[in-house]
């Protein structure tokens, strides 16, 4: 019976393949095809350069499908656009309106309590924040804009990504279905989803947030999945022996033990979000990536490098705050100091 299934699968795949070749031949333009079908077996010039009639017709259906999507679901995308834009605008206007010493004080307070009262981390983060405006006065407002975009993107990633990672770890079928999609999200060139983003949402912050989500969520999902799968089977058995049900095992044992990996995932998510910032500036998103692009297009190496340093400082700030918070949580379950 097993051999039967194998042959059936092989047969179906080869049938699909031949079907593709037939479609591509029939939809090729007449000037690309030889005079008569049987000429292919007489004149072998098509073995030289890849023949133009062996071209799978993907572009046209994708274009018309996309047009249909814009027309039919226009209002739905408008809704997403307004929601995300409202979130972004309110956050940005609030922070830009605050006097800058208060913003630095806010960052200091957040770091101090998130890291569990660590002074070294707080001083470093405060210095980095101060240096953002110190590098160039223009950068202060722009860094706030970028921070808002990255924060909203990261929030989306964490809220959507971690549950998906947990689902992948618990269910093998979900895992097999999602892995190729994650591969696709990471390797597809960013402009492939940025340009449709512009057509759907318009130029500005919203396609950038969507792009950050698409680019930064796969490492988070993968590392969450890995972290939960790597929890020692014996520990889980022990928790079941103590009478924990699935939900209690998940929240009480698996997630706390997987926390190092999940924090690493959030760190990678942060880094990749900031990497997208410069690419997003190529679709009109205002922020510090703008300055890098400006320096690039106007051949101003100093400007581009300075803006690059500002992005690195932003990355350090985000990273230190999230990592120290993660360490604080892990202290509770895996204390480093012996009691």
């Amino acid at each position: 019976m097993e051999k039967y299934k194998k042959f059936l699968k092989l047969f179906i795949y080869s049938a699909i393949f031949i079907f593709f070749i037939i479609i591509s031949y029939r939809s090729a333009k007449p000037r690309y095809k030889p005079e008569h079908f049987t000429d292919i077996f007489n004149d072998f010039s098509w073995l030289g350069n890849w023949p133009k009639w062996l071209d799978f017709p993907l572009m046209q259906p994708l274009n018309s499908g996309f047009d249909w999507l814009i027309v039919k679901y226009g209002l739905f995308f408008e809704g997403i656009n307004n929601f995300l834009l409202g979130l972004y605008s309110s956050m940005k206007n609030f922070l830009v309106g605050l006097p800058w010493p208060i913003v630095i004080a806010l960052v200091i307070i957040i770091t101090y309590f998130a890291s569990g009262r660590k002074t070294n981390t707080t001083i470093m983060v405060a210095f980095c924040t101060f240096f953002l405006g110190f590098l160039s006065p223009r950068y202060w407002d722009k860094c706030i804009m970028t921070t808002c975009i990255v924060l909203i993107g990261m929030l989306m990633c964490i809220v959507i990504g971690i549950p998906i990672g947990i689902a992948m770890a618990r269910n093998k079928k979900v895992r097999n279905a999602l892995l190729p999609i994650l591969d696709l999200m990471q390797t597809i060139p960013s402009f492939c989803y940025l340009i449709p983003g512009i057509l759907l949402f318009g130029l500005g912050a919203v396609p950038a947030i969507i792009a950050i989500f698409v680019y930064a969520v796969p490492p988070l999902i993968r590392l969450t999945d890995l972290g939960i799968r790597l929890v020692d089977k014996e520990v889980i058995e022990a928790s079941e022996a103590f009478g924990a049900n699935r939900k209690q095992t998940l929240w009480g044992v698996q997630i706390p033990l997987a926390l190092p990996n999940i924090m690493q995932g959030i760190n990678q998510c942060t880094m990749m979000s900031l990497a997208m910032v410069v690419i997003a500036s190529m679709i009109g998103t205002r922020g510090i990536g703008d300055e890098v692009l400006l320096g690039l297009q106007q051949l101003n190496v100093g400007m581009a490098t300075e803006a690059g340093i500002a992005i690195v400082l932003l990355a350090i700030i985000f990273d230190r705050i999230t990592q120290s918070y993660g360490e604080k949580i892990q202290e509770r379950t895996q204390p480093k100091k012996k009691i």
Partner: protein
Amino acid sequence: MKFLKKLFLSIAFLAVTTFGTTSANAGCKVHLGDFDWDSANIHTAIAGYIIEKGYGCTVESTKGSTTPIMAALFDQQIDIITEVWRDNLVQLIEDNLAKGNIIELGVNTPSSTQGFYVDKPTADKYGLKHVNDMKSEKIAKLFADPEAPGKGRMTSCISGWTCYTINLVKHKVYGLDKYYTNFDPGSGGALDAAIAGGFKKGKPVFSYYWTPTGLMGKVDLVKLEEPKYDQACWDEMTKVVEDIKANGPDVYKDTCACEYVNMSLTKAASTKFANNAANKPIIDFIKNYSIPTADVNKSLAFYMDESGGDMEETAKNFLSSNSMWESWVPSDVASKVKASL
């Protein structure tokens, strides 16, 4: 035995790398400069095809925005540029001509337009004909900028193009900066996508655009009138533009502004390439190279609709369906090019 195998493999590797490099083509090389908009791409593709197949030279082309590519030309790193928007860069070109960095090779496309465009339905509905018609809160609300509440948005040029700074100055002089943001879309593709997206969703579009382009033939845009072109006015404006490009937007001085003139697009070559006597046939060819605007538009329409994004296909289509190019080259070159089509 293992040692012999390693020895053989390393000798083979070294042999391949050294022979690979020494067997490079020692013939003529031409380095073309290409920009990030479609009309420049077409000229580079057609000229590159003729040079490669007709003259048998290796053609290398580098793509980029106006500022870096022009800088590379002035620095003698790029040999030929086939489409120069001369009047936008007139100060820069005159400076470098005087310094002997470049020579000009005549006119390529005799006419082009640039300006501020509004989509036809909105222009008809609100009677928008002149830039002064745009200066009203009610009209600015139509083109509302979601990131600058209270202002409208004019999608402008990207910061690497000179027209970004020209539009910035024009906004200030015409008084549009109170009502609109001079929005930098980040890349040429994003600008096209924003205009196309606006039309698809039936939203009002207010943007800078130009011809010859492929998009202009597909969407219905109405050009807004500006004060009539005046040479002295334009020169004064370009001085301020160059100042802002070098020193930032704070050095803006009050100046005059007028419409973009119907400018001819020219060609330029670096003096290093032009002074080399061996390159004279190529320089003569480029001097003769000239395509009228209507034919550029036709090729651009072919590129967008039928070639599926294949620039080489578009170049081949132009060469096979036109015979004007045969007079630009000697007959033996023409026959070689025709044979390869």
